[in-house]
């Protein structure tokens, strides 16, 4: 493990439009290593004059998928890297990247559960890797995703999450819409707050492992509320997603 983290050239093998603002890139890696759900890769872009810039992107795929990774990238209009990935990158393009990186915001079935995943916006990406890992590993750990999004159009992985719900795999998804809810919606229609978290955690078994990922204000509010609901601070894992970090 003492090696430097090497940059490698991956090849884009699939591009999937998830939502109007988010695309998933499948990247084949010559030097693939199994990651832990929750880890990220650094992407580095180089201009002809040598100018470089880099960003971190969470892995959306499960470690059981060999030889390639999936990165879901939200387009930040005034960003530098995400507009390039969205507007310029095509199939078969090469992308320079290194990883997997991170040993803090990670989950493996061996860690157990119940698993409480709290995601805001594109912060759901590393949580999806955890869900997919749980499914691929055929684990029965009780898993609950509380997913805060602006509107139905912004829901990532909507079809896959719906299928998991329907198949009674033990993965439950609760949405809360912060701006616009679907017609006839009777569920949560506000930002994540203590009452919401209390309701969700009361339905889960003891020994909860919460993973919270999203914009910094959501992460702070959710982590504070979970602590006040009696979950030890050391067990709550958080990851802040910045508007430019992604």
């Amino acid at each position, binding site marked *: 493990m003492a090696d430097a983290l090497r940059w490698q050239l991956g090849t884009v093998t699939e591009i999937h439009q998830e939502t109007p603002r988010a695309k998933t890139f499948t990247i084949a890696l010559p030097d693939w290593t199994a990651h832990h759900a929750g880890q990220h890769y650094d992407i580095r*872009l*180089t*201009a002809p004059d040598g*100018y470089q*810039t880099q960003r971190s992107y969470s892995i959306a795929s499960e470690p059981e998928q060999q030889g390639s990774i999936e990165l879901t990238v939200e387009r930040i209009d*005034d960003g*530098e890297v995400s507009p*390039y990935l969205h507007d*310029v990158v095509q199939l078969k393009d090469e992308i*320079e990247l290194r990883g997997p990186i991170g040993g803090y915001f990670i989950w493996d079935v061996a860690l157990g559960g119940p698993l409480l995943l709290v995601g805001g916006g594109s912060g759901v990406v590393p949580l999806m890797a955890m869900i997919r890992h749980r499914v691929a590993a055929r684990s029965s750990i009780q898993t609950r995703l509380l997913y805060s999004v602006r509107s139905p159009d912004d829901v990532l992985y909507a079809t896959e999450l719906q299928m998991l719900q329907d198949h009674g795999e033990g993965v439950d998804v609760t949405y809360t819409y912060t701006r616009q809810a679907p017609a006839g919606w009777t569920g949560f229609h506000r930002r994540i707050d203590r009452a919401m978290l209390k309701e969700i955690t009361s339905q889960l078994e003891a020994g909860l492992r919460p993973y919270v990922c999203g914009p910094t204000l959501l992460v702070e509010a959710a982590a504070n509320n979970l602590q006040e609901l009696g979950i030890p601070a050391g067990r709550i894992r958080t990851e802040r997603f910045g508007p430019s970090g992604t």
Partner: protein
Amino acid sequence: MGERFVSRGFFGRRRQPEQAGRIPPGQYLVDDWPVLSAGPTPRIRLDQWRFTIEGLVRQPVSWSWDEFLKLPSKTYLVDISCVTKWTKLDMKWQGVSVDTLFQAVSLDPRAAFVTAYSYGDYTTNLPIPDLLNDQAFIAYQQDEKPLTPEHGGPARLVVPHLYFWKSAKWIQGFRLEERERLGFWENLGYHRRGDPWKEERYSGD
């Protein structure tokens, strides 16, 4: 990788400097104003805000927010260069010249440097001559609006002829010193003076 990899179709969010004489070497032009901070935005209540000049002065002096706003202020139109390589032209500020502030104190003849210190733990060091002759000011408006907290409001130091890390956000005071005490970035490899036209980015440049 032997030959350097180039990302197909990537040129960065940069504009070619068409006004070459105004862009320091190694810089590129931006239209937006990036937010770069070394720490969280301090919450400063205006009724508790003070700006203080202390250290090697005969008598320290300190202004409250209301007193500071009564000082004569000026409009400045200046170009700003950040060591992270962006340059923004024609930024309009309203603020108080450091010359005006220094008129309120009598400097000890040994005073040669200023440590500008901020709310939070940020500091930066400047030789006194870089602050004189209307080269530096404490700004509280940008583009005719109150300076926003993420850009250093309620007030920040602005020293346009040096890299922007010298323009300390959330300014709290000046400490006059005999010797130069390296600041937050200067003591970790950044240049002690930071002249963008000489590309004084790192110590030794």
